[in-house]
Structure formats: C-alpha cells, structure tokens
C-alpha cells in the first residue's frame, strides 16, 4: 500500500491490481474490468459524499472497500442487472472478518519499549515492498482469508500465500532487529 494520500496515486496503484483481480475472478475482458473499476471508484466517491462511508464506519482498508465495490459491480454486470441505482445503494460487505479488533491495538501505556517498537513498525510497514506489502496488509489490516489474498495478488493458492507470509514475517523481523541493533 502506497502511503501517499494523493487520490491520483491511490487510483493508479489500485487500477492494475483491481483489473487483474476482476479478470481472474469473473473472467471479464479488459474493457469490462476497466468499466467495473471506473464504476466502483465512482461509487466509492458517491458513498463518501452521501455520508454512507466515513473514516469511522470503514471496517477495512479503503483499498479493499474499492475492490469489493468493483466486485459487486462485476457480479451485477455478469448477471445482467448492473444498474447504477442498485449498485450505489449496495452495502459494503466483507467476505472475511473485516473488523480490526480492539485487542490488536496496543494501548498507550507507559511501556516505552513497546511504544518504540510500534513507531518503528509504523515506519517499516509504510516502506515494505511487493509482494510482502500486499500480503501483510491484506492479512493483518484487512483480515482477508488467504484464498482471497491469493486471487488479489495473483498467487497460485492459499498455501502459496501462507509460505510467502512466513517469508515476509521473517524479513520484517530482520528489519526490526536491524533497526534496534543500530541504535
């Protein structure tokens, strides 16, 4: 995930990923997948403007929300019922557990080491490279099931995601060690 809050950068980073995912999952042509992305993006914008989507009621990342909107549009397109009015009123639903649990949030106690680790980790997660970036963000932020992550990242299956995740966690650990040993 590119941590640059610029709409253009966000859309650019989402476009190819989402189109690839739609083509794979729904066997859409490039043009149809493009249309779905276009309509999905506009639906996200409308939901924000109409107050249906706010930062507070978002239960997953905006990236996943956008992909899901595009998927909804693709489903409607496939069933031949892809009317805009229906699409815009769709409630966002995650296929997995979209909630970020409160227990996962580290409480801001006077635990200095944990706080330092958290700040370092925040830096690290912003600068991760592909495919670890996608795999770890989808796993730990969006809480998506591995089968879905496999489709989104263009990986073979859930086992591949699992093994990649282990490798990424190892890299992450090494990165954290290197930060704290350098201090």
């Amino acid at each position: 995930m590119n941590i640059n809050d610029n709409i253009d950068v966000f859309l650019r980073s989402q476009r190819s990923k989402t189109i690839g995912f739609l083509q794979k999952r729904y066997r859409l042509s490039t043009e149809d997948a493009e249309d779905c992305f276009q309509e999905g993006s506009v639906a996200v914008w409308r939901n924000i403007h109409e107050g249906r989507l706010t930062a507070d009621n978002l239960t997953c990342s905006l990236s996943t929300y956008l992909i899901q909107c595009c998927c909804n549009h693709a489903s409607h397109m496939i069933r031949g019922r892809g009317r805009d009015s229906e699409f815009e009123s769709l409630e966002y639903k995650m296929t997995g557990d979209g909630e970020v649990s409160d227990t996962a949030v580290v409480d801001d106690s006077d635990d200095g080491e944990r706080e330092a680790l958290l700040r370092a980790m925040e830096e690290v997660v912003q600068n991760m490279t592909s495919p670890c970036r996608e795999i770890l963000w989808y796993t730990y932020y969006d809480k998506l099931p591995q089968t879905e992550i496999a489709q989104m990242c263009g990986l073979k299956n859930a086992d591949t995601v699992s093994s990649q995740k282990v490798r990424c966690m190892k890299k992450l650990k090494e990165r954290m060690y290197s930060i704290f040993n350098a201090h």
Partner: protein
Amino acid sequence: MNKSKINNILNSDNELESLLSSAMHNVGRAYDRSLIEKMKAIDEDDFRAELIKSKIGIPKVPIWKRIVRSNFARAAAACIVCVLLIWGIGFVPFAETNSSGYASMFNKYYTEYNATPFDAKNDRLNINGEKSTAQLIQDASELLSQKSRRNTKRSIEILEWLLDNNWRKTSLDPEIHWYLGLAYLKDGQKAKAKTQLEIVRATGKMHADEAASLLKEIGAYK
C-alpha cells in the same frame, strides 16, 4: 531502552503479529482518513478526471501477448503438441522417423536371416544345450526387422555377445558381423557399422559384395 525486552517482544510471533496489526491499524486508518477527506473535497467531475489520469501511463498489452494469453492459442498449441507426439510415437515407422539416410540404406540391404539345421551343427553353444549361434543370429535379425529402437539395441547386444563368446570361430562369423553392421547402421552408429562391414568385406565370403557396396553408399552419404 531495554534491549532484552525488545528482543523478547520480537522473538514472540504473537507479539510481533499484534505489533504489526497495531502499526498497520494506525498507519492505515490515518491514510484512509486522509484519502476520504481528499475525496470529500473534490467534486465528481474532478474525481472522474483523476480516474482518467490514472488510466494514462498503464502500458497496453501488446496484441501478440493477448493472443499468446488467450485460451484459443493455448488450445491450438496443445493440439499441435498432441499431433506431433502421435506422429512421432505411433504412426511413423522407425526407419522413417530416423531422418538420416542410414535408415533407408538399412532397409535396402536388410534381409531376414533363417537358421538351418546345418548351421547348428558342431555349434558349441548348441552342444551346451542352449540356443545355437544361428538361432541367436535369427533372433537378432528378427529384432532388427521391428520398428522399436529398443529392439535394435537388444539385437546389438545379442550380436556383440555372440562375437565375445563365440570363441570357436565358425563359418557364421561373417553373418554376425554383417547383421551387427546393419544394426549399428540402423541405430545411427556410422563408425561402428563401417568397422563391421569392413570385416565382412575382408572375408570375401557371404555378404562381402553387399558390404562393399553398402560401404560405398555410407562413404558417399554425408
């Protein structure tokens, strides 16, 4: 800062995952919040303009790549491979699959060997109660007439064994050398075939003329 405490946290997978989850939650929330605010600030036309802008710069997939990736191309490639396999394995006789001219030379000179009772007379192998030399030459010759490369190899083995074990040289020696020469030829082993045929020609007995003429053809064939 307590380094051992930090190491303890990093060493625990659960702690690390919890930390990662928290960091992502903090960073992701801030990022999404800022993005939502930005989207709120622009109108639909501007947003659509951003969408169009994001489309530019994505390289179009070249036509040849689209064709290669298409299911039709894959099915066509699979069909071609199947046809080639069937053609290569089953329906073309061995001699024709061997594109070298040696195969056609073999076909021109090869005649099946028929053992006669006279051949077996005084044959040491026959006396020992095993197959006679003549019978073994006949077996080898029969194997040579078949398409399979494995049978050609088997035929070579029999004839080489005969040469090694037929210590009491018999009148059948030229036959062994002749068929061994043909077998090597069919197998594409030109040098070995020539050696055997030279021996046959040198004996001046049976197959000597054929060996001489075959040697000429081999020499002429590049």
